């Protein structure tokens, strides 16, 4: 039933594409008069096919740079800027979670904190940044805090933060993504990003996840 529905909706998209004139190279797959189809339109592409659909790091860097410049003009202070970046990341994360769950056929719903964090550390990082995160740790001081670290985050690869805004960490965007995924999986938490440089990795960023009390209470019951 569901396959039928999706097939028919695919068809309707295709027939629409065929009836519309192509707009300045935007849709490269619109059937030409020769009936040839060069590449597949992004709307028609299968969601599960990931090979060859990666976005170039440079394209992302330019986009992210513009996002930062846009945001910077509309905020007062660094805290405000980080909050905005976090919000932008949240919007990405909530969509990424949807896609990840759809792609992962054998996925089960994570009910435990550790499984959830491991999913972020591996699956999420791999899809978003093309590699796993470098470490997943539990805070020794606070029971409700966990840390995911990335030695060389793609987000801030080309960014040099000037001295007057040195407290700013562009990883706030990644923190927003993580927060959205935690939220979406019913693990509400507060997520922040911090720069923790170590030898050889000056850009190393740690994502600090502070779980809400309700999550810890539930975790206690599940034990």
């Amino acid at each position, binding site marked *: 039933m569901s396959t039928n529905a999706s097939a028919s909706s695919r068809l309707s998209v295709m027939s629409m594409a065929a009836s519309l004139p192509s707009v300045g190279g935007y849709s490269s797959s619109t059937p030409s008069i020769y009936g040839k189809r060069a590449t597949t339109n992004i709307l028609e592409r299968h969601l599960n096919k990931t090979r060859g659909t990666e976005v170039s790091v440079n394209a992302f860097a330019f986009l992210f740079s513009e996002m930062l410049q846009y945001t910077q003009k509309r905020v007062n202070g660094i805290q405000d800027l980080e909050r905005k970046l976090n919000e932008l990341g949240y919007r990405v994360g909530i969509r990424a979670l949807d896609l990840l769950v759809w792609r992962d056929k054998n996925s089960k719903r994570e009910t435990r904190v550790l499984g959830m964090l491991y999913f972020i550390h591996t699956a999420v990082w791999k899809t978003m940044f093309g590699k796993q995160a470098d470490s997943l740790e539990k805070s020794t001081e606070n029971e409700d805090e966990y840390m995911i670290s990335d030695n060389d985050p793609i987000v801030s690869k080309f*960014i040099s933060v*000037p001295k007057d805004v040195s407290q700013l960490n562009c990883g706030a965007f990644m923190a927003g993504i993580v927060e959205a995924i935690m939220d979406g999986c019913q693990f509400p938490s507060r997520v922040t990003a911090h720069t923790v440089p170590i030898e050889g990795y000056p850009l190393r960023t740690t994502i600090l996840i502070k779980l809400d009390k309700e999550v810890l209470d539930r975790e206690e019951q599940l034990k």
Partner: protein
Amino acid sequence: MIFSIYIINKAGGLVYNKDYSEGLSKLTSNEYLVLAGTFHGVHAITSKISPVPGSSGIEMLETDTFRIHCFQTLTGTKFLLVADPQQPSIDHTMKKIYETYSDYCVKNPFQNPEMPIRSEQFDVHLLKLVKSVGGLALSNSNNPYIIGNTGAGSLQSQSAASSSLPPTLPNIASSGLGLGV
């Protein structure tokens, strides 16, 4: 051996300058700006006086002891590379400098275009690049172009090395300008 790198914006202002050799005597910051502005003017003139239409401006300025290589991007930014006449594969080095610039300056949201370059990562990666092409005077013990610099510690070999790299910046500036005007 690479002596210096300058970057001139499309209006002729100097946005970046860095020396990579120790023996060079420094110009004042005002003189650097004048050098950049003058080169910018000379570059514009040379492209106009060419008998062939659509010619690029000056690409290389040669003396006995150094060469100034110029590379202009499509957007009008100029990269000046002051190097030893024997320095090999300048084109490749220039391309790498351009790459470093587009990575760590153009993609840096805190770097305004056409403004002086203040980007820590740019500094770091440019230094790494200059080192990798054997451009640093400090690491010239394995540089085949410096004769007589076998032991970095001995005083004699040091003086030999410094006499074999005579271009000081006033030299460069005066002869460069003299040729232009």
